[in-house]
Structures are given as structure tokens and as C-alpha cells.
């Protein structure tokens, strides 16, 4: 091999490794994105595990409006709605809310609700001590159920935010329920 060919080989190897590295980087963007959104609390994702409620101070001077929005994945034969569409709470106050869900089909279906808070910056201040979204919701044919949510709004919520919209989307995960859905629910 001539010296040129040798250095060609070397550069070729480096560049191929570089491209493989960038292929991996594309996939690394996925956890990176989640970590960034988590730490910065920027894309409306709420935490997916129960928070505890003790010695939380209630700020009686301030009120925050909480709106509930529900959606069902298109084509999924369920009805899903909040019992009340809107409530007013004080930051720090523990509040109960209820949602109703009904399986309109003649099949047993497993649903999974995914929450999202808007504006996104408010998500980090929305704490759920109990939520049906932490679990999968199996519903027999024609059955209905009442789904509980217990939450409080952190007193540190930035003053510019007066309204938080909590949106739930229900997905049919009957076919997926195996591995991926469990992971999703756990996250």
C-alpha cells in the first residue's frame, strides 16, 4: 500500500466511525430530550408517580383555575369526560376530581391515559397524589367506571400563570399492553 492509500484508509475508517456515531447520536437524542424536558419542565409532561402531601402550606390569598380537557384516541370506542370542566383552587390545597369513562364496544379494552399540562412551564408545579393515569385501565365490554384524581398546585407556581389546563388523552393499548405500555405507564 502506498502512503496515500494508507492515509486514505485511516481517514475512511474515521469518517465511517463518525457516521455510525452520529447514527447512535440520533437515538441518544431520545433520552436526552426526555431528560431535558424533565429537568427544565418544559413540554407539559407531569410526573408519572404519586407525590406526597405533607406539611404543604395553603396560600389562601391566591386562586388558580384548573381546566380539565379529555380526548379519546380517534377510533377508540370509549367515552371519556370530566365530572366538572373547571374548578378554582388555592395553591397548596388538596383537591379531588373525578372523570367518567365508558366502553361503548362489545370488546374488553385496556386504556391508558396520558396527561399533559398547558402552559408547559406550569407542569412542574402540578402535583398528583393519586391519578388513574399511573395505571392502565382495563374496561370490560359496555362497562363504565369513575376515575379519581387527587392533586394540589405547588405554591411556587409563577405568578404569571393563573390558569392550568390539564388534558388527558386516552389510548387503546390492548394490543400493546405487553412491554411497551408498562414502560410508558411507569415513566
Amino acid at each position, binding site marked *: 500500500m502506498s502512503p496515500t492509500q494508507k492515509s*486514505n484508509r485511516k481517514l475512511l475508517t474515521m469518517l465511517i466511525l463518525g457516521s455510525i456515531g452520529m447514527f447512535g447520536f440520533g437515538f441518544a437524542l431520545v433520552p436526552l430530550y426526555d431528560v431535558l424536558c424533565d429537568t427544565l419542565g418544559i413540554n407539559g409532561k407531569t410526573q408519572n408517580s404519586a407525590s406526597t402531601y405533607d406539611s404543604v402550606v395553603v396560600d389562601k390569598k391566591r386562586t388558580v383555575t384548573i381546566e380539565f380537557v379529555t380526548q379519546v384516541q380517534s377510533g377508540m370506542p370509549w367515552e371519556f369526560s370530566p365530572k366538572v370542566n373547571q374548578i378554582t383552587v388555592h395553591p397548596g390545597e388538596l383537591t379531588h376530581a373525578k372523570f367518567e369513562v365508558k366502553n361503548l364496544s362489545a370488546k374488553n379494552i385496556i386504556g391508558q391515559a396520558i396527561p399533559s399540562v398547558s402552559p408547559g412551564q406550569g407542569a412542574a408545579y402540578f402535583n398528583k397524589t393519586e391519578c388513574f393515569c399511573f395505571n392502565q385501565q382495563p374496561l370490560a365490554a359496555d362497562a363504565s367506571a369513575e376515575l379519581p384524581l387527587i392533586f394540589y398546585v405547588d405554591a411556587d407556581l409563577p405568578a404569571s400563570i393563573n390558569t392550568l389546563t390539564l388534558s388527558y388523552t386516552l389510548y387503546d393499548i390492548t394490543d400493546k399492553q405487553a412491554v411497551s405500555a408498562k414502560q*410508558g405507564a411507569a415513566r
Partner: protein
Amino acid sequence: MSTTTHDTLDNAHDEHHHGAPKGLMRWVLTTNHKDIGTLYLWFSFIMFLTGGAMAMVIRAELFQPGLQLVEPNFFNQMTTVHGLIMVFGAVMPAFTGLANWLIPMMIGAPDMALPRMNNWSFWILPFAFTILLASLFMEGGGPNFGWTFYAPLSTTYSPDSTALFVFSIHIMGISSIMGAINVVVTIVNMRAPGMTWMKLPLFVWTWLITAFLLIAVMPVLAGVVTMVLTDKFFGTSFFDAAGGGDPVMFQHIFWFFGHPEVYIMILPSFGIISAIVPTFSRKPLFGYSSMVYATASIAILSFLVWAHHMFTTGMPVFAELFFMYCTMLIAVPTGVKVFNWVATMWRGSMTFETPMLFAVAFIILFTIGGFSGLMLAITPADFQYHDTYFVVAHFHYVLVTGAIFSIMAAAYYWLPKWTGNMYSETLGKWHFWCSVISVNVLFFPMHFLGLAGMPRRIPDYAIQFADVNQIVSIGGFAFGLSQLIFLAVVLKCIKGGKPAGDNPWQAADGLEWSIPSPAPYHSFTTPPEIK
């Protein structure tokens, strides 16, 4: 690899040292950079006409409000495949073809550094596009989710043929990466002695930087289509909220590729224009080193602006501002380039042969595209402009009157070197004037459609947009037909014409003009002396 040796007395490999071998197998087996350049350029032109035919379908449907010619789903397939073909089939292969033809001649190398890989990187392309085009005829139709294939359009709601779409993108990506690697190795290792970095022609510089962009982002594109594939067919949930994924993340990953990609499609143009303007102004390029640094800074900044495509996804304010300012910052090095070209022309003894006409039109019209880009970069304004025809106008100014015009300019400029004959200046001028008038009738009114609120990628529209759409469509048909003149020019020039001589432009500078025209099958088998 005998093609890279400098040994002209090597009888055992006789066929490599004379003219080209004959017959079809010459093209299939060739490792010659000029042959491969020619293959790329013809392939790109065929794709340009194919994608153009789809644009004609789009404009015919939009000639009138209402649905008359095609089904909405087919319309969506046309916009999608038009975009994919023009980006990956027309513009990118044209640049790779020019790189193959020109880079070895410009740096005094006998060929590309990795000739056999070069053959592969071309020959997998026709397969990729055959697969993509064939998917249009499958049951359920071809890709219909836009060239940006946002999830969940491309995952939950896409046709079964999406697997073919993904596969074809993989092949295109591998082809581009191999092409880019070849360019880097050639430029780094094969420069003639004395060809120092700051003596490299700007086309070589811009391509070197483009090649690094390609190597950095094409694998990310491959990654994101793979995620779409597994989300759709193998039950993963990268972009599916039901499984813990996030559809907005698709856009982040896609545009991390996508924005550098748009610079992949313009940096080589900057190199071409920087070669042509000095020749026809009869002055050396103004600000050579600032051109190099401007290109490099554009490339680096291009990694920091991707979310300007996502202002309306509900990002936090600080992110909106960050991406807005970074985007506006790119206008600075871009402005440096435009300034340098104008300064090069200033007080030059200018003449306006066809390559120069295209180059001057590039400078003016690309700048218009840059300005509309700046308007789009203003976050609150983009809330209005996003997903309207204003965006369509913007990217067609930078891509058609930018990238494509520069490719046309390059073709006219180097055709005499490639064929040994002068092209017909009369026909060339006809091609230019027809193109430049029709392209503005086609794309300029789109700005107003967008400002008035006409959404992009829609087969039907409200009747108040009817008149302007009709004008746009007429411009479109005229522009499409004008390109047939170009085909005629090229065919005529290959057949014959006034002999070009080594340096038909007299004032043209560069090693490629020091060898005979047509460029011999093997050039610079012994490295030239660089003054």
C-alpha cells in the same frame, strides 16, 4: 487500485490509461470520476424532470378552487414525493455530480480517493428512487405525509408502503454519506503538492464543509426514519404518547437533520457562484478568506437553529427567543457572502454570458429568499406565516432560484470543459430569460397567498385565492416547459459546436482550465505544479 496510481507505463492495466472503454458496461463498472460525475448529473436531471412532472400535477389541481383532477390523497402523495425527489434526487445528486467532475480537476488529483466506493454510491441511487416511485403504485398509495414525514402522520396514519419509503431513504442516506466521505478523503489526501488550504478554490472549500454536514446529519435522518419504521411496524413508541413517547420529539430529531440539510443544498452553490462571478467580472474574488470563514460559521450555526421550524409547537419563551436570535445570526455570514460577490462585480469589466446571467439572478433572488427567511425567523410573525404559502415561497426562492439556478450556472460554465464544445449562447439566453421570468411569476405571488392565509399542502382553497393561484400555475407551467430548452442545449452541445479550447472564458482561473477540453479521460496523472 490502478486508477489511483500515477504510473503511466503500467501495461497490465492498459485500458485504464487510454480513452474510455465502450459499451454499457463502461457505465456500470466505471470508477472514473468523470464518468461517475456524468452519471450523477444525468440522474439528477431525470429526477428533476420527474419531480417537475409532479409539480405540474400539483399546479394543475390548484389552477382552480375545488377538486377537479386528482383525489386529495393522491395530491398529498404528489407534494410528498415531489419534495423528496427534488431534495434527495435532483439537488443533492447534482452537487455530488459536480463534485465528482470538478474536485479532482480543481485540486490536481488524478481521480477521487475511493473510486470503487464512488461507483457504489452512485449505483444504489437508482434503486432507491425506483423503490420510492414504485410505492406510488401500491395498494393504499405511496407516502402522503409530506417530505417532512411528521409523526403521527407517518406512523399511525400512514399507508402500508411506508416501509418502502423508509427503505428508500436509508439507501439515499447511505449513498450521500459514501459520497461525502469520498469528497473529504479526496480533498484532505489528494491535493497536488503546493495546493495549500487557503489556495483551494471555494467550490472545493464549500463542498468540504458540506461533506462534514452530510456525515453529521444524514445518519440522524437514518435514525429518525428507523424510529418511524419501528413505531409503525414493530410496536415501539418513540413518537406515540400512548406508550410514553412524544410526537413533538419527532420534529426535534427531524429538524436537527433538516436545517443542516437545507445548508447542504446551498453551500456548494456558494462555491459555484464564487467561481463564476470573478470570471465574468474579470477580477479576483473579493474577500476569499472571509468567504471560507463565513461558510464555516454558517455550517456551525446551522446546528443551533433547528427549532425555527417549530415555533408553533408551544416551546417556552426562552427557547423561542434563543432560536429566533440564532437564526437571525446566520444572516450575518450570509450577508458577508452577498457583499463579497457584489464587491467582486464592482467596477469589473462585466459580460453576461449565460452562466453569469444565472449567477447574477442567483445573487438577487437568493437574497430575496434570505429576507423572507428573516421574516419567518421572527417568532411572533411566524405564528402567522407558519404552514402557509409564505413558507413555500421562501424555500422555493432559496432552493429553485438559489440551489437550482446555481446548478444551471455551473452546467453552462463547465459544459465546454466537459464536452469540448461551446453550447449555443442564443439558446442558453432563451433558457435563462424564460426561466427567470416564469420562476418569479410562479413563486413571487405565493408570498401574498401566504400572507393572506392560504395554507400549504392543501388540494383545495377558498375562492378569494383563485386569481393568484391561476397566475402561479401559469408561471409553473412556463417554468416547467423552459427546462426543456436546457435539455436541448445540453444535447446539442454534446453533439457538437464551436470547439471550446482549454479556457473558453479567458479570465477563468483554476487548474481545470489548464487542461484540454473535453477534459481527457485521465487528467493530472502526474500532479501539476501549483504557483
